[in-house]
């Protein structure tokens, strides 16, 4: 079978599988976030953390919940790493340096999972399972909670209330992430992913060194790593490691897990706003970008010219032979179009244009389909912007889902749009202008620039994947990327929740023939165009000097 055909077949299989679970999962999530009853285990949790799961919250209250919970998470994770050296079950690893501990704490709480450490050489069982794996669940649940709050903003009227953060957080974890993760982990174990608490085994020697195997609760962490669009691997090689991702089938399943919740949330959105078609329009925009990016990636990786490439059947450098070009392309597009950042190949070794696709994917704000929760709210904010411009063209004050997009709404949307470009471009420019950061580059020219651009793009967009090559474990990068991850995660949430609050207060405008219909292909096209043009224009100069300069050189 030709690699191209195998790629298309894998894409089709994936689409079919996602289509199959779209309805049940989307509806399940809508029920989860709308129902009145609490499970017994949930009540225990509320009691334990002292939260009232019934009171409705205005947007500032909801935001306070998000920020307080996340701040505690950062602090806890930081301290846990700082005292690792004295904790039992740490496989003898020492405590983590302050800057790296901060970076890792920020990284896992912000759902980024950027890793400036080597998992198997730095983190013991306690930190991996008790700290990092916990954040894999709850940071994802926070993203979903904020998305649901925004959806409620569209669904509710005459109220500033957006639901209850604690209840959304706990339910998202208990009723969605945990059960699906368990199923996911079982499937992964069946595929050959390891799950144990074994220590480090010396398995042999080779000239110049010894080889070790680490055991660990890999499958369980692997499932939520993908499902929660986290991406932080148990091992440094991440999903390229055979213990994390042993076969082409496990590879496809992991991509499926990555895309599962972000796509299904559009159904949840449609359900909750009372119009499934609105959800489908958003889904269509996400899916179109995803499919086109995947096909482009396969094309550029397969079509790359050069003797070595032709012998290998494409740009095989940095890719696992068991996944091949299409399996790697599929994975790398899914991981950069969501906020996952897991890798099964080295993005740095992609062709120039391929690396550009990875970069652009993240720069789109990770909205196609994006991170769990963050993809949906990112897409809805873009929809607000698209509606604003297009709505004027039908001769009315713009409105989306019956909510008027006025000064307040567009202010919040505009602020949202500003955050990540400011972080990405600002930090990259600082790193390029200063002397020290440049020493971390392992390449010169356009590729070297891409390494740094990629690092901040990945951090500020909460992706977490790395353009391997950059030595990111320096004080400068640990600190600046840490800041980029935190601001890139929580500043947008401030604006999303403020937007949600301002929407929920409104009296809905009834739909008439004069209303811009936002469930039509025309609008979907417009939404895609708005996303591509606004992000494309923002990053074009930077992309031109990085991947484009490299990709167009030959």
């Amino acid at each position, binding site marked *: 079978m030709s690699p191209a055909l195998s790629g298309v077949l894998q894409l089709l299989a994936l689409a079919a599988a996602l289509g199959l679970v779209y309805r049940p999962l989307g509806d399940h999530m809508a029920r989860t976030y709308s129902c009145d009853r609490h499970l017994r285990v949930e009540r225990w949790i509320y009691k334990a953390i002292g939260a009232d799961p019934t009171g409705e919250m205005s947007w500032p209250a909801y935001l306070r919940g998000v920020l307080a919970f996340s701040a505690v998470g950062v602090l806890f994770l930081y301290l846990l790493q700082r005292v690792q050296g004295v904790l039992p079950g740490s496989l003898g690893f020492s405590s983590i340096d302050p800057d790296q501990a901060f970076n890792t704490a920020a990284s896992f709480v912000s759902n980024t999972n950027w890793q400036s450490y080597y998992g198997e050489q730095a983190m013991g069982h306690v930190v991996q399972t008790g700290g990092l794996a916990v954040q894999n669940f709850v940071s994802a649940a926070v993203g979903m909670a904020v998305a649901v709050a925004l959806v409620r903003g569209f669904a509710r009227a005459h109220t500033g209330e957006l639901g209850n953060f604690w209840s959304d957080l706990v339910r998202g974890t208990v009723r969605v992430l945990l059960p699906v993760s368990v199923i996911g982990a079982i499937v992964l174990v069946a595929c050959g992913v390891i799950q144990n608490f074994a220590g480090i085994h010396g398995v042999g020697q080779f000239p110049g060194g010894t080889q070790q195997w680490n055991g660990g609760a890999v499958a369980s962490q692997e499932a939520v790593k993908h499902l929660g669009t986290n991406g932080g691997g148990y091992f440094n090689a991440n999903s390229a490691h055979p213990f994390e991702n042993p076969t082409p089938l496990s590879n496809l399943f992991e991509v499926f897990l990555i895309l599962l919740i972000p796509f299904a949330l559009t159904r949840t959105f449609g359900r909750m706003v009372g119009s499934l078609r609105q959800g489908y329009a958003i889904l269509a925009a996400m899916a179109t970008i995803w499919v086109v990016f995947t096909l482009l990636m396969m094309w550029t990786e397969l079509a790359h010219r050069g003797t070595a490439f032709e012998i290998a059947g494409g740009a095989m450098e940095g890719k696992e032979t068991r996944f091949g070009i299409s399996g790697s392309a599929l994975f790398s597009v899914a991981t950069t179009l969501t906020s996952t950042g897991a890798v099964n190949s080295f993005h740095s070794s992609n062709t120039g244009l391929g690396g550009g696709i990875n970069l652009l994917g993240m720069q789109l704000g990770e909205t196609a389909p994006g991170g769990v929760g963050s993809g949906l709210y990112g897409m809805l904010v873009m929809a607000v912007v698209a509606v604003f411009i297009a709505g004027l063209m039908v001769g*009315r*004050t713009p409105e989306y889902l019956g909510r008027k997009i006025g*000064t307040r709404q*567009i202010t919040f949307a505009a602020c949202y749009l500003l955050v990540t470009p400011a972080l990405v471009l600002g930090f990259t420019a600082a790193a390029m202008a200063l002397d020290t950061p440049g020493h971390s580059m392992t390449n010169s020219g356009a590729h070297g620039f891409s390494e740094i651009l990629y690092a901040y793009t990945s951090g500020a967009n909460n992706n977490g994947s790395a353009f391997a090559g950059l030595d990111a474990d320096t004080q400068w990068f640990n600190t600046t990327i840490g800041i980029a991850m935190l601001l890139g995660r929580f500043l947008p949430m401030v604006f999303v929740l403020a937007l949600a609050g301002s929407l929920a207060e409104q009296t809905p405008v009834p739909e008439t023939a004069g209303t811009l219909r936002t469930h039509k292909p025309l609008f979907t096209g417009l939404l895609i165009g708005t996303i591509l043009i606004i992000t494309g224009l923002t990053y074009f100069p930077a992309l031109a*000097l990085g991947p484009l300069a490299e990709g167009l*050189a030959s």
Partner: protein
Amino acid sequence: MSTSTPATLPDEVPHQDGPTGPAPGHASGHASGNGAVGGGFFDPGMLVRAVPDALRKLDPRVMVTSPVMFVVLVGSVLTTVLALREPGDWFGWAITTWLWLTTVFANLAEAVAEGRGKAQADTLRRAKTDTVARRITGAGEERVPGTELRVGDLVVCEAGDTVPGDGDVTEGVASVDESAITGESAPVIRESGGDRSAVTGGTKVLSDRIVVRITTKPGETFIDRMINLVEGAARQKTPNEIALNILLASLTIVFLLAVVTLQPFATYAGAGQSMTVLTALLVCLIPTTIGALLSAIGIAGMDRLVQRNVLAMSGRAVEAAGDVSTLLLDKTGTITLGNRQASEFVPVKGATRAELADAAQLSSLADETPEGRSIVVLAQEAYGLRERRRGELGPAEWIGFTAQTRMSGVDVGRRRVRKGAAGSVTAWVRERGGRVPEDTRALTDRISQAGGTPLLVAVEDGGGARVLGVVHLKDVVKAGMRERFEELRRMGIRTVMITGDNPLTAKAIAEEAGVDDFLAEATPEDKLALIKREQAGGKLVAMTGDGTNDAPALAQADVGVAMNTGTSAAKEAGNMVDLDSDPTKLIEIVGIGKQLLITRGALTTFSIANDVAKYFAIIPAMFAVAYPGLDKLNIMGLSSPESAILSAVVFNALIIIALVPLALRGVRYTPTSADRMLRRNLGIYGLGGLVAPFIGIKIIDLLLSTLPGIG
């Protein structure tokens, strides 16, 4: 100025039995245009004349209100300083020149838009010459300057006087020349009490004497507000304009970031750029097209209303007009012609149709009301009965219509013919011992139920007095209304007919006119309640009104258009005044509101879409030396880096001037569904905005490359 007749003499008292509407009383019969909004005028000479104003607007304190253009101004200053430091650099000077031109072009657009109002303001000022008021004091009269009047003062105006201020007539009746405000030369009647008591300062009393109670402080009169409005002095940014400005400002910040951070990237690549080039890139990227034209679009939108003789008291109201989803329309004068017309002669048993028509015509010759005239005309058209003149019947006694008798007729010798309200005619016949046939009642009921008004025709001759039959008077729906309502429906606007008629009549007319709903036997309270109900459902409501009792509803409506013939209370309550007092104009106002928003959206889309081509021009020009592969992005094949950058800047400046007429005239707007409108505008301004600069920049580059030293 349009030429409808805003105010005729006071209405005849309705002279038929049965329901009458709340009769706005100024049926102009002016069915204006179709739904499409036409453009204003544009004359290239205006650009030249506006240059001094445009230069004056370079004041940074003025420029800062438009964030996008302020950035261009700062950029222009910056490149000027750089060019001064290196005077031999032709490229620096060329860029500097075109950046300044960009700024000036933006101001030019605004100045042209404002200039159009200035001429009108001058005319108004002439009307506002200092008047001397004859103020009534306890002891008699004193002459004071009009500017010293207080609210509540009573002043006397006689033939030849100019009314010194806005007020209400408290005594007397006079004909007034309001042409200074409305442009309409026919005089109008102003009288104390009722709905036509308002007089406006600056208008001229032509006959008789009135006493006016001043209701507005000098300096805040209607004419003062008009001057402010048309000059744009009172212009405040509207909500949507502010929102759009925020979006444009944030895009400007994004591009500022993209350009400022580019320098370290470029330096690393060994292709550091001059500040001039970076400024040029920035100006090309930020949405200058819409930034430059935004305020001109707003001013022109208000101006389009002024050209149609509508004064919007706030730009907010114009925007709201575009959002209106419910239109309340008065039946009389808006949906139907002001008067009922004869549509049919229905004879009773034993009488012939021709006989009836003849009698009806005869008896209506002395009836000068429009209803009476329509009977004469119907008889003539349907039965070929020539209109007879009074002389040709020999000695005859003509009985004109009065509100008391509610009948008209003629006595020729022994033959007496009468036509009038059913009650009056029945009584007249019975008085003369005549008989009213059995089927008369059935006939009149049938007509009433169909929404018409029955008039009885009776005759007394040798055969005694008897009823001949019934004339069916019908409310005549104006031509083309059904289509317009259809159009409104397609735009998602629901029309509600407001009438004082009984529900039966109202329903019949509503069906015939094709309105979506009706409010029968409407009182002012009903109207207000209806508006509140609609608004509670999230709808925006527009209505017209003229009476004092309309004031609460006018104030409650999102768009309240007061008729200029109306009372001061109504004019105060509404947020627009129609100087022509033409209620049909509401439909046009909605169109103008929509057109305003569409123009903004279209030019924003165009402006953003333009950037793609500019990147393809400038990025290869900047970096193809460092990374030769990037020359593949030079898909336009521009001749040299300098020429490429300059072409983009020149295009960016020229497109502003090229679009000034569009900004002033507004994007073509035809009422249709949102989907079709979006498809069309996206095609023209979205795709057009993508493609046009590729062509434009290429052409400019071709021209530039013929110059020595470039290319």
